[in-house]
Each structure stands twice: as C-alpha cells, then as structure tokens.
C-alpha cells in the first residue's frame, strides 16, 4: 500500500539524513585534534564514529521529546516528514561541498517547517517556538562558546607560560584526546536521537507503534550505525575549514576549545536550554583562536559561516516546501522527489570529486589562506 511505501521511504531518508549528519559533524569533535596532530585523521574519525555509536545507546531522552514543539504533529503526515528530510539532506550536502559547518538540526527543523507550511498551512508551525528553540540558541551558542573558550585559552597560555614546553605540548595533546572523545560521545547522545525521534514519530503516525512509545531496538541500532558510519567517513572539507582555516590551532587552544564545547553541550542538554552542537563547537574554535591572538583569526571565515547559518533554516525550508508540494501529489510525486534528490546528491558528490579533501590532505592548507575580506552580506 501507499502508506507502507511512504513509511519505508521516510525510514530510509531519515537514515540517510543521519548519515549526512554524521559526516557533517565529525569536525565538531575532531577538527582541532586533527589540526594539532593529537590524533591521526584516521584514528580520530574511528574514535568519533565508535563513540557516536555508543552514545546512541546511552540515552533516548531526546528521541522521546523530539516531536514536541516546533510543528503541530497531529497535522503532519509521513509525506511531510519525508519532504522535510529531503530538504535537510540537500542543504547538508551543499554546505559540506562548500566546507561550511552548518547546523544539521537547523537543516532538519527548516526542512520540516517548510514541508509543514505547504502541507498544513502557516497555522501548523509554531513560530514562537521556532524563535526560542532555534533562532535564539543559534545567536547565543557561538558567542557563549567563543567567550568561554577564549577565557580558557588565555588561562591555559598564561598558566603554562613558564612551564616546560615539551611537557605542556604533550600534556595538552593527551588532554585533547579525552576532550574530543567527550564531544563525540555527547554528540552521539544528542544527534542520533533526532533521527530516532523522527523514525519513531513516523511509525506512530502510521499506526505501526502505539502512541507514546519509545524507539524500538532496531531504530536505535540503525540510527546509531548510520551516524557512526557517517562520522567515520569524515566530512574532511569541514574538518579542514574548522581545523585550518579559522586560525592556526595549537594544542592548548585545541584542548580549551574542545573542553569548552563538551561542557557547554552537556550543560545545555541537561539544564534545559538546548544549544546547537555545531555552533557551540565552531564558536569555541574561534574563541580559542582569539584567546591567543585575536588578529590571528580569519574573521572573514566567520562572516561566511554566519551567513550560512542564517540561510540554513530558510534554504532547507524552501527545499522541504517544494519537495512536500511534489510528494503530496501521490506515489508518483514521492518517487519523483526521491529520484531528483538522488540525482542532486550524485551531482554534489561529483562536484566534490573535482577537488577532493581526504584524510591524507586534510591538513595541507597553504597557510594564511587568502580570505576575501567581508563576506557578501
């Protein structure tokens, strides 16, 4: 039947989104560790992937609450979720091609909002919740993380200024392995959950699961596996941007950035003010760069990222809206959306092959990369 086809489509699309979420966010945990050579690129992505998988099993709290708030879930159908996911995946792939660390959550929310607008009208989107849960955290996350990482970096350099150079370098390198692992684990407990929540919600709306049930084991396992595989593949373009293009990162800065990011992510997800992992990690790296020497930070890169962040939600919403409009024409429409999405994804992948960034060349950046001053804004 149509219903089961669309449910299968949603599950597959959700897992694909989870996969893109994984490689998009490898950089959050590992960019600075790879840049300072605290871990080799291969080891770093393996550790991050494994910890994401472990994290997926540790808690399903986020998955249980994912459906509450942004859109009126009684008025959305599997088709809407499918279209929203397509929008999110497209935006994730595009920003990856450009090497920009945009928030996968924002892409997901954007896609869902756009699809809901088309399918159920403006009444089904709770714009107040969009502001408090998405826009405000997006502004606050990078600033808070930046300030904290900057203070921590400054402190680290001041404290160890007269200490033995070799000891300090080695010590912070060891610390980085731990702090990066904490970020990866925290990421696993957060981000894989979103996909689990989406799949569970779909199964509930399709009547395959009773209302209010938690994610079944196969959902937890496949979501954890998808994000872990994505993380292991590694979004090398974004890792290069965060590790090498923001500022020259040394081990004390890497440690301070990752420690701040891990702390803020954990504190925010457990004290009830959800912040975006990507924006926290990015802000922390800028802060760590500025904590040593503000002039050493490529602020032009920050401008481009800020622009990408502002555009993320509306852009994913636009794709989600178009996809929802086409997909709601029936089974044929859904198939058209899927085929077009696969074609676009293949095109983006082909474009990335023209200038591949891999584990082997991720750190090869002609230092001070000339950045056009002032992003087009």
């Amino acid at each position: 039947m149509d219903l089961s086809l669309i449910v299968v489509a949603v599950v597959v699309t959700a897992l694909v989104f989870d996969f893109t979420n994984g490689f998009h966010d490898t950089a959050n945990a590992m960019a600075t560790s790879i840049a300072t050579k605290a871990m080799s690129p291969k080891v770093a992505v393996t550790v991050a992937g494994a910890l994401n998988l472990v994290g997926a099993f540790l808690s399903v709290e986020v998955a249980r609450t994912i459906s509450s708030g942004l859109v009126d879930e009684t008025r959305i159908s599997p088709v809407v979720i499918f279209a929203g996911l397509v929008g999110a995946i497209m935006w994730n792939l595009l920003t990856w091609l450009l090497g920009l660390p945009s928030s996968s959550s924002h892409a997901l929310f954007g896609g869902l909002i756009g699809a809901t607008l088309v399918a159920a009208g403006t009444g089904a989107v709770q714009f107040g919740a969009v502001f408090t849960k998405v826009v405000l955290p997006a502004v606050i996350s990078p600033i808070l993380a930046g300030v904290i990482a900057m203070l921590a970096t400054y402190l680290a350099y001041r404290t160890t200024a007269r200490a033995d150079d070799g000891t300090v370098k080695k010590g912070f390198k060891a610390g980085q392995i731990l702090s990066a692992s904490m970020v990866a684990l925290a990421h696993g407990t957060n981000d894989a959950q979103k996909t689990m929540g989406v799949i569970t919600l779909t199964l509930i709306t399709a009547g395959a699961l009773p209302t209010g049930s938690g994610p079944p084991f196969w959902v937890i396992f496949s979501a954890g596996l998808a994000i872990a595989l994505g993380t292991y593949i590694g979004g090398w373009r974004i890792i290069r941007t965060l590790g090498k293009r923001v500022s020259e990162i040394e081990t004390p800065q890497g440690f301070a950035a990752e420690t701040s990011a891990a702390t803020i992510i954990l504190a925010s997800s457990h004290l009830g003010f959800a912040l975006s992992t990507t924006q926290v990690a990015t802000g922390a790296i800028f802060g760590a760069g500025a904590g040593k020497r503000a002039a050493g930070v490529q602020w032009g890169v920050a401008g481009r990222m800020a622009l990408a962040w502002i555009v993320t939600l509306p852009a994913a919403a636009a794709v989600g809206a178009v996809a929802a409009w086409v997909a709601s024409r029936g089974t044929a429409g859904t198939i058209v959306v899927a085929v077009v999405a696969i074609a676009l994804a293949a095109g983006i992948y082909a474009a990335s092959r023209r200038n591949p960034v891999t584990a082997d060349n991720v750190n090869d950046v002609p230092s001070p990369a000339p950045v056009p001053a002032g992003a087009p804004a």
Partner: protein
Amino acid sequence: MKIDWASLGTVALVSLAVSVAVVALVSFALVGLSARARANAVGGPDDGAPPPMNPALGTAVSGVCLLAVAAIVVYGLYVIVA
C-alpha cells in the same frame, strides 16, 4: 513568547565555571610536571632561574589536579548516561 533566561544563565555560568576549572587544573598539572622535566634535563641551556618547584612537589600537585579532572570527567560521563 517565553524565553527561559534562568536556565540560559545557569547553562552559561555552569559551562564557564567547569570549562575554566578543567583547563586550569590541567594547566597546573602540566606546570607541576614541568618541574620534573626540568630536574631531569642534564646539560640543557640554563637561564639561571631556579625550577619553579621541587620535582616531588610538582608531581604531587599534578597528581591532585589530574585526579580532580578525572572526577569531573567521570561526573560528565554520569550526566551523559543518566
């Protein structure tokens, strides 16, 4: 529209305190361990300054600092799991 300033403030303060504490403790630990490295250095360039502290004391200080960090990390893991 209700913005939960209280929990935002809590997140900011807790994050700041814990991040700074962890980074400071690790930095102190490394300063302590440096005393050891300098004591072991034989025939290195000596700037005439005495080592900041005696090697045994340095090791002890770094041990205490790293234990405190370990406690914070374990608590962080507990927060993730619970």
